[in-house]
């Protein structure tokens, strides 16, 4: 206890923490999600009336919608108790299931941090420890430089207050409506935190926008909402998350991401997510791409007990394009069900999906994807490629693509391969003096290179390191 107190004194969160602790008990009495709960959240955040209304509408839809249960081979969600959500929906509350002290984290998570060599200051922020560290001056400077160009980066809660018109128009209206699925509805009711990015017409943000958010762990709730609006001819690369495991005793993460890609704009959204292995990761991510715009989804799914995540793009304007590059890694006890969805709703639209997965020690990976070419989307093309690597006989690797083609002047191709690591490759590397483990690690690193080469160097290094750790079986 005393060490905890000392630890808190070093931070400026002590006062807040104490205050929240008193509040805690009023929440614990409730079971299940009620209108009252939502009102309290909204009031807490001092939200305008329209946002409260949206939350309440989403809540109603959440109660009406069924759990997704009829998907072939889907992860088992029976453990997800949506009535247990209440204590966790205020990300700044002590009971959200995080821990307040580095020493309280599970050992395997601490090990990972140590092995990844992440700086001490970031360790706490990234691992979901309640303590907050203020962003350093360097990040502030960057922010100011962007603001001069009219670029906006801020916390989503703040955006509701300061940019109400933009948020009101784009927030869970055209892109991801709460009616999309049960967890999108849940998200719409209880969302908190996340990032708001606005890039005005013609502005190019040269560096990836992770530097600021990475330290700002306030954006790392269980129900964070990210809204990116890239106006005509602009360009931005947003990086979400981090490659160290985010720990929470509460096991549901249900985020929402909405991206609006304006005419001829280019948005790249990269995420390397690595949730602790008790987490159910059920997200909804979608982009709407206007004429000539380009959307790129780069994602690495690591960790979690079960993941269901299918980033999607709606190619709405002529000549819009979309690229997906995904990698999934499933180890012991993990079920990673992930893929991509693309709707070609305009002529001359193009999409590519490249999916890689590795399954090991009884883990399951699945590629589940949908490509839909609407009637009238002539001269469109899509190419989907899935490669899966399996390590042993306890693991499972599935591929379930769906193609709906309503247009004849198209070029559609899907291919998938599954195999094991080539014995000859391993033998060759061993003959050059590497041991069996190193050889396999090297092969896997090569296998996932299409992803790592798209990431900024520090992320790529971390991702590679992370895969190595998974391969060693030193995690979990």
């Amino acid at each position, binding site marked *: 206890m005393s060490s905890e107190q000392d630890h808190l004194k070093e931070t400026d969160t002590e006062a807040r923490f104490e205050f929240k602790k008193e509040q805690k008990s009023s929440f614990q009495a409730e079971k299940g999600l009620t209108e009252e709960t939502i009102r309290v959240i909204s009031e807490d955040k001092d939200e305008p009336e329209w946002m409260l209304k949206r939350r309440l509408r989403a809540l109603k839809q959440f109660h009406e919608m069924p759990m997704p249960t009829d998907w072939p081979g889907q992860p088992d969600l029976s453990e997800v108790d949506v009535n247990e959500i209440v204590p966790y929906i205020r990300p700044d509350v002590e009971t959200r299931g995080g821990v307040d002290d580095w020493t309280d984290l599970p050992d395997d998570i601490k090990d990972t941090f140590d092995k990844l060599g992440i700086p001490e200051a970031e360790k706490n922020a990234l691992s979901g420890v309640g303590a907050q560290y203020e962003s350093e001056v360097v990040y502030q400077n960057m922010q100011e430089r962007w603001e001069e160009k009219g670029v906006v980066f801020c916390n989503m809660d703040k955006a509701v207050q300061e940019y109400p018109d933009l948020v009101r128009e784009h927030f869970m209206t055209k892109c991801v409506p709460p009616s999309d699925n049960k967890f999108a509805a849940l998200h719409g009711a209880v969302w908190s935190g996340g990032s708001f990015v606005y890039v005005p017409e013609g502005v190019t943000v040269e560096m990836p926008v992770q530097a600021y958010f990475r330290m700002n762990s306030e954006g790392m709730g269980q129900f964070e909402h990210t809204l990116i609006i890239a106006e005509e001819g602009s360009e931005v690369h947003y990086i979400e998350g981090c490659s160290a495991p985010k720990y929470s005793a509460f096991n549901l993460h249900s985020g929402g991401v909405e991206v609006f890609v304006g005419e001829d704009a280019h948005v790249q959204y990269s995420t390397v997510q690595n949730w602790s292995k008790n987490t159910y990761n059920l997200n909804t991510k979608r982009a709407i791409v206007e004429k000539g715009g380009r959307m790129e989804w780069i994602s690495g799914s690591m960790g979690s007990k079960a993941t269901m995540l299918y980033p999607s793009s709606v190619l709405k304007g002529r000549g819009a394009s979309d690229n997906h590059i995904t990698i999934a890694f499933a180890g012991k006890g993990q079920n990673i069900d992930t893929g991509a969805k693309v709707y070609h709703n305009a002529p001359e639209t193009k999409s590519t999906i490249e999916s890689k997965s590795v399954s090991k020690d009884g883990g399951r990976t699945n590629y589940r994807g949908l490509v839909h070419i609407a009637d009238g989307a002539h001269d469109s093309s899509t190419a989907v490629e899935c490669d899966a690597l399996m390590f042993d006989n306890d693991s499972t690797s599935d*591929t379930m693509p*769906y193609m709906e083609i309503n247009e*004849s002047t198209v070029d559609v191709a899907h291919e998938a391969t599954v195999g094991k690591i080539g014995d000859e490759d391993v033998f060759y590397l061993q003959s050059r003096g590497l041991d069996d483990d190193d050889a396999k690690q090297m092969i896997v690193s090569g296998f996932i290179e299409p992803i790592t080469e798209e990431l900024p160097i520090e992320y790529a290094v971390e991702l590679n390191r992370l895969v190595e750790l998974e391969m060693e079986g030193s995690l979990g």
Partner: protein
Amino acid sequence: MSTQLPASISEETVRQLSEERDEPEWLLETRLEALAALSDAELPDVIQTPGRRWTNLAVLDFEELVDPLAQTEERDLVSPESEVEVLSFVDAVAEHEEVVRDSFGSVIDPERDYLTALSVALFSSGTLVYVPEGVDAEDVKIRTRMEGRSLFNHTLVVTEDSSSVTILERQSSEPYSEEGMRYYSGLVEIDAGENSYVQYGALQNLSEETYNYTLKRGVTDTYSTVNFIEGNLGSRLTRSDIETELNGDSSETKIVGAFFGHRDQHFDVNARVWHQAEHTTADLVTRGVLDEEARSVYEGVQDVGRGAWDTNSYQRENTLMLSDDSEADASPKLIIHNHDTEASHSATVGQVDQEDLFYMTSRGIPHLTARNMLVEGFFVPVLEEIAVDELRDDLEELIAARLR
């Protein structure tokens, strides 16, 4: 889901069907169990994506479609000179009751879904192809011409050790005097003994007011091979499932499919294979052409079980669209539980290559002729897979006729 028992069918109906055929007690029991299963059986699974169901089987109104006691058909059974037995079901039960009893309902679970159970309860026309040990039989032919409103057909193929057989089955429908839709249901069970070889080909050219449901399933023993070929050209709506369970070490299967849809035809074709033993090989090849407002739905499943070491499994599906109003949906699936596997699948959708067309028209070939030549060429890789000459020629003929 309209999974209720049609008023025209009762236990009495089934008893009468069975009595007319002088069937033994166990067969009547199997029929009655299937009938009882109808009350809570579901329609076969259909692929669903957000907001869409790929095939609507609920349109089948069995009140209208089924007239079980008035099933009539014309049948030709041709067996070559060898010792192979090709018998109608009535004769088969009389002459080889043990063979029928052992295999009937063992390859296909009669209660797997509503359409299958209905077929088992009501089938009136059936064939046993029995190939004794070491016998090689070629050119077994079964031709069924449906005459009434509905027909339920059951084909049972049993091959003993080290035998081989090539079977060609055709379905067509005779003109029918009354208005309204018709229904054809055909189940095929293939029980392949050790080291035996079965080549089963089917050509479906039913009239276009017919709904067609067919399920063909084979199980293999050690070293055996079961190959399926299916051509679909007729019917208003076809739901076809072809499945092989590779239960024997070093067994193989090849499933070859071709379809050509026009007007508002709907083909829901499915090829599935389960690798359950070691050193098994599967190859799934499907090609289809769609014209006018036709729609195709394809699912291919390659399931590699945990004990299926050293598996090779391949699947490819290609669709050619001749019209902007057609739709092609595909879902090739891989489910792999053993890493000692080489597996791949691919699916493509496209149209006639404009450059090829330009080249041919520049050589003086009229546009339509050129297009038709290219369509015929598109089917060649599938036709080459067909080992039965007669089936290949017939299919080519039907494709050419449709293009004219």
